[in-house]
């Protein structure tokens, strides 16, 4: 696994993941910038994503839906806030209605992706922040999240002052 570090912060409801890939930043950027590549990894394995709109410019929208094993569609999207290819992407990740427009009452998170060159390839740091605790709980309740892992081993880190 390319994952090198994960930290979660209860105070700020932030998840920071650091991963290293043996490719150039330019190549890594394509997995975000090319909708056909994006849909190969955005959805969970059993909820593949289909990207229907992809405008990676500030103010632009990316629209997609994920399809459940039963064929139910879960639309979502991003509002692009800032782009600095191939190094930085900032977006608002939202749940969408059937037409692909943001559902204002639904939870949303702010995602910042930072890609830098390293000796062995490229490092991607993903910082996801949820607006409120309810937003986090709603994401889980909406059934977008597959499975559940035991949190026992992480309790200590989580509670560390």
């Amino acid at each position: 696994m390319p994952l090198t570090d994960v930290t979660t912060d209860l105070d700020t409801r932030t998840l920071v993941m650091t991963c290293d890939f043996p490719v150039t930043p330019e190549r890594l950027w394509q997995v975000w910038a090319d909708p056909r590549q994006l849909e190969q990894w955005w959805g969970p394995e059993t909820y593949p994503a289909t990207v229907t709109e992809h405008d990676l410019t500030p103010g632009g929208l990316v629209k997609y839906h994920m399809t459940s094993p039963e064929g139910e569609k879960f639309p979502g999207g991003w509002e692009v806030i800032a782009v600095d290819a191939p190094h930085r992407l900032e977006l608002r990740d939202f749940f969408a209605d059937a037409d692909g427009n943001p559902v204002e009452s639904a939870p949303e998170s702010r995602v910042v992706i930072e890609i830098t060159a390293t000796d062995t390839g490229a490092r991607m740091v993903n910082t996801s922040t949820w607006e409120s605790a309810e937003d986090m709980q709603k994401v889980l309740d909406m059934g977008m999240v597959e499975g559940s892992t035991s949190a026992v081993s992480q309790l200590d880190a989580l509670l560390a002052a």
Partner: protein
Amino acid sequence: MTSSDEDRADAFFHALADSTRRDILRRVLAGEYSVSALAVDYPMSFAAVQKHVAVLERAGLITKRRSGRESLASGDVEAVRAVGAMLTELEDVWRGRVKGIDALLAQDTTTDTTT
């Protein structure tokens, strides 16, 4: 999602968004403590510690019982696990995505379709 779920999530995070309360919770998860025994270790009044314990109790993270004149607090391991699970599940979504990106990038070398 019901409003009681929302209230519960809110209470959890409010309770955990304070380093003294997290410290209290860590200790009472390991064993039962009287509130007065807990209070000795913090540079604040007994009443202030009692308040922190009350916040944790309202969030369902600890339970209290009376023993004579003492009020004994212990942590509810299951409740604390539930909070951890919330963040862990969100983490799992991104772990899955990272795995997917890795698999996608690995195709470059096996299929020679580097763009």
